């Protein structure tokens, strides 16, 4: 089976500022990879490049063995904010990316996906009637409905309160169990990273490079109180601090 996502020697600069300093990363089918790192290390840029929103980079990004040179229907992206179209109902928003949105098949798909994120009752609601968590679930449904092989999430729960965030993480796990996409999740929440991911990739200070990779062993469903996860969190924290103190010495 082809590799859903393979990144090699990826470099990106904005003007004179290098943002990504050579990233190598391979992600297996159905794997969940969390990308963490200090702010400004190019985490979000990495996702934008994989999504094909910005094609000015050097190196290689391959999705299912074909080089990325623009947006690809096999890649989905959930942004930090829901970015729902305010004039469309929830179900119309979810159907936005479907080519054949008017067909009965598409309607069934939309209904199923809304069920997965628990928004069946709000299919006809307008975005302004949703809470922050519901809006982000609708955005998740919009990305899932096209059944992308690779789903990218850019700090998707960072603007939500802790309780809603945990519920959405479980929604995400449920959706992943159902669709089994390859997931790349950028986050600054270490608990989220170790709870959701199979592997946590730590990027260093700008220009971002892969500093460390931690494998998260426990099988799903996971328990948030699992001491293994807490241990991993501590390891990540130490790695991040190490990163910071190195910079401190350099300065």
């Amino acid at each position, binding site marked *: 089976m082809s590799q859903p996502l393979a990144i090699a020697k990826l470099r990106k600069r904005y003007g004179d500022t290098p943002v990504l300093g050579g990233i190598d990363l391979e992600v297996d089918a159905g794997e969940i990879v969390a990308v963490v790192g200090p702010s400004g290390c190019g985490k979000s840029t990495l996702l934008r490049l994989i999504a094909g929103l910005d094609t000015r980079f050097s190196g290689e990004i391959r999705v299912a063995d074909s080089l990325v040179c623009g947006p690809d229907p096999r890649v*989905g992206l959930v942004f930090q904010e829901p970015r729902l179209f305010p004039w469309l109902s929830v179900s119309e928003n979810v159907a936005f990316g479907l080519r054949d949105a008017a067909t009965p098949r598409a309607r069934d798909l939309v209904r199923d996906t809304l069920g997965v994120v628990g928004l069946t009752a709000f299919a006809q609601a307008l975005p*302004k009637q949703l809470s922050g968590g519901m809006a982000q679930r609708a955005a998740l449904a919009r990305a899932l409905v096209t059944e992308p092989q690779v789903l990218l999430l850019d700090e998707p729960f960072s603007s939500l309160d802790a309780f809603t965030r945990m519920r959405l993480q479980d929604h995400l796990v449920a959706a992943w169990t159902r669709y089994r996409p390859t997931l790349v999740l950028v986050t600054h929440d270490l608990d989220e990273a170790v709870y959701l991911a199979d592997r946590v990739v730590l990027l260093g200070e700008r220009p971002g490079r892969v500093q460390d990779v931690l494998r998260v062993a426990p099988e799903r469903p996971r328990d948030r109180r699992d001491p293994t996860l807490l241990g991993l969190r501590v390891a990540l924290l130490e790695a991040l601090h190490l990163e910071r103190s190195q910079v401190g010495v350099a300065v």
Partner: protein
Amino acid sequence: MSASAASRGRRLPSALPWILPVAIVAGWWGSTAFGIFEVHQMPPPPVVFESAQNMWARGLLQQDVMSTVARVLEGFAVGSVVAILLATLTGLWRKGEEAFEPTLQALRTVPTLAWAPLLLLWLGIDEPPKVALVAIGAFFPTYVNLVAGIKGVDRKLVEVARVYNLSDLEIARRVVLPASLPSLLTGLRLGATQAWLFVVVAEFFGAATGLGFRLTDSQQSTRVDLMFLAIVVLAILGKVTDSLIRMVERRMLSWQDTIGQMSAEKAARETELRQGLP
């Protein structure tokens, strides 16, 4: 306040919007009744009403209203359609912006009424110059607002459409145009106001019917009552147009999460509530 008084207050439409108009009419009436103005300077409401009945009986009032309304409708339609087409072109297409924007911005600085004598000369004294002047008046508010609306569309929403690899044309149709609908409707509302202003001016120049004609004609024959009548009718027609467009606005923009829509929705909820009550 007791609960019953509160619910009664909600059930009845508020009297607040009527206080000022009633005060104006009372002041108008009073100023002649107490001899501040002479009746021939400021005819009191009953005199104007009598003139209205008279004009109606002779069929002149209907004729004036019909021809003015027709000019406004035609001019407004032409002006807004051209404005929407050009604004879409300049808003979405960089080359179109380069081609049209500087000229249109320059033309906009010409006081639009300065066109009146020229149009009269070019297009004759029939309907075309009047409709053209109304069209010019309606054009600019719609054009300016829609261009600003298109330019102001949230880049983040456009990016969502780009993730789905939509073509530029599809992005325009499915994201940019719906997102700039609020600006378009604001422009149309201002354009309609301008259309009423310009039709009166157009009718000052060599018209044989219409409310603007009635104003100049009555001025020459010092029929102040008829001038008042024309002004009152214009005020009513302008208000009706504005209310119609506001109604369309509320209906088409019910998705907006704004203070304006909030009050409209609250009103709708209260209506539902009321209907639910025994």
